[in-house]
């Protein structure tokens, strides 16, 4: 790993904290275009370990209805890649929380991968997740660019990913792996099924060299606590967006949401 990446905030987070990491995902520009910054600041204040900010896209095929709706509303409200990068720079002035940008490949390609990486890095972004970017394309065309800009790229794995491929992904990962909890699009669920637990156990037994976070369907204290038993931590998305849709961006309410998530499971 190059020296730039050693100072990466995500790397530092995973070095200093081995369990119970909570990362929260939300869509940039939702509910309104000006909400990206205050939400990030409130989450940092609430003690969240990492934030993932979604770059909205018109055709989010890996997302369920909640995130689809937030994407639509964000685009209609004027969210754009350039606007988001400026907002991240404002967030970065107020907090040192690790920031990941997550989105579909096309908006980033249109912005220009090189320009995106340079400006994201300058704004204070630490990592990028582009679920529809093929691994081979990343390795051939973008890895050096990411490294040069001190950005980590996280790959997804899912219950249908073969062990061979998981190991291949592990071997090119710098940072963490995003373990999707089920063969599903994003959404909320009250509890995990037995087959998901079996998958988590299988994952843990692989002894991967990188930490992984479990995401998709983590939506309450119970699912969070379960995920944290098997992984370095977990990612909450749809459930938080539902909270924003219902209660707005009030900082105290966001802190309460995070507090409730972290309740020990009953």
């Amino acid at each position, binding site marked *: 790993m190059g020296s730039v990446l050693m100072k990466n905030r995500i790397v530092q987070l995973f070095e200093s904290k081995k369990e119970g990491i909570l990362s929260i995902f939300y869509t940039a520009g939702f509910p309104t275009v000006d909400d990206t910054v205050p939400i990030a600041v409130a989450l940092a204040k609430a003690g969240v370990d990492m934030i993932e900010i979604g770059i909205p896209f018109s*055709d989010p095929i890996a997302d*369920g209805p909640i995130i689809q709706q937030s994407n639509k509303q964000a685009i209609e409200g004027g969210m754009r890649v350039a606007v988001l990068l400026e907002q991240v720079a404002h967030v970065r002035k107020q907090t040192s929380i690790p920031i990941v940008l997550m989105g579909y490949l096309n908006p*980033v390609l*249109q912005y220009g991968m090189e320009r995106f990486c340079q400006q994201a890095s300058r704004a204070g972004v630490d990592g990028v997740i582009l679920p529809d970017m093929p691994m081979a394309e990343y390795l051939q065309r973008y890895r050096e660019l990411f490294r040069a800009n001190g950005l980590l790229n996280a790959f997804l794995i899912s219950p249908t990913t073969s062990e061979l491929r998981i190991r291949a992904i592990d071997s090119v990962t710098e940072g963490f792996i995003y373990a999707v909890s089920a063969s599903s699009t994003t959404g909320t669920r009250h509890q995990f099924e037995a087959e998901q637990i079996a998958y988590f156990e299988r994952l843990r037994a692989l002894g991967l060299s990188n930490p992984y976070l479990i995401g998709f369907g983590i939506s309450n204290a119970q699912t969070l606590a379960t995920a944290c038993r098997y992984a370095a931590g977990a990612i909450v998305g749809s459930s938080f967006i539902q909270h924003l849709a219902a209660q707005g961006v009030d900082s105290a309410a966001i802190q309460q949401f995070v507090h409730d998530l972290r309740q020990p499971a009953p």
Partner: protein
Amino acid sequence: MNKPRYEVDTQGYYGQFGGAYIPEMLYPNIEALRERYLAITSEPSFQQEFQALLRDYVGRPTPLYWAKRLSEKHGARIYLKREDLCHTGAHKINNTIGQILLAQRLGKQKIIAETGAGQHGVATATVCALMGMECMVYMGKLDMERQRPNVERMRILGTQVVPATSGNMTLKDATNEAMRHWINHPTDTHYIIGSVVGPHPYPDMVARFQAVISEEMKRQLIEKEGNPFPDYVFACVGGGSNAAGAFYHFLADEHVQLVGVEAGGRGIDSGESAATTALGKPGVLHGSRTLLMQTDDGQVVEPHSISAGLDYPGIGPMHAHLFDIGRVTFVNVTDDEAMKAGVALSRTEGIIPAIETAHAMAALDQFEFDKDDVVVINLSGRGDKDLETYIKWGQY
């Protein structure tokens, strides 16, 4: 100099277009298809069953009909490749027969599909009924209204039709929903994509299943003209499957002029169009890198066409490449021009075409032919499904 490449390369690309841009959840399915589609489809038992069904069930070969009055009108030797006479009324069934046989060999129990005009939905529902497999078709809510007969045909065939209610509620949105469904049901379900779109190997696989169209054309042209090569082949392009099939065996013969006809909608400057080569830029949608109608910020622009089957903001990566290297000429015609051409074909040849196909007919007016030019138009489908749109348009 290297000869230009028309076929897909080993990485799944046609020049700069193609590839497999999919979330990890779909990777095992796409990988299994990629590894096995060529081997499975070239097995003798597969070929035997495929050919027998195309002959006895679909009704192939479809006629190559010399359209006498149309020929007089345009001053050329015009032939119509009668895909409208296929069982279910369009070329779409060539592909669904191939894919259902493949799905069986992959051990899948359930089938999903997207549909725009409903022709691919009906063709999928039909092969699922034939094979006794459970079938679910996603269709934009707007398309369910404008192609109502096809919705009911699918239901009679025992298929569940699920409305897609996002975006403009058309083909793009139905495709999004089908992909989401597949992400949620990756192991028991095969997704029968209806055009030469989607992640590799779909574009190549669908093109190969449709290639029977140009294979027959060649044989039939030898019989009728003593020469397998026409001067022109015309086909409408939504995703581009009927065009891929009609062009396939002529690609390497560069003296055959290939013309793809896109939906201009209300005109390419109207903001309501689906003419992707005129309005698109390279981008990634539905699993492949291709030409795509989009904003500067990479958001997909909602297309418009009077024809549900052409109402899509992209084209297959193979066509994006053929456009890029100039092997295929792309033109577009407006909603109005297409409707007029549909009525004109009805009156000169007694054939009411699908509105998609009517676009290919309308493009003839943009060309000056020599009287000896042999022109083949791929008559991709019949117009029964479009009666409501013809009636609403009213000018007949």
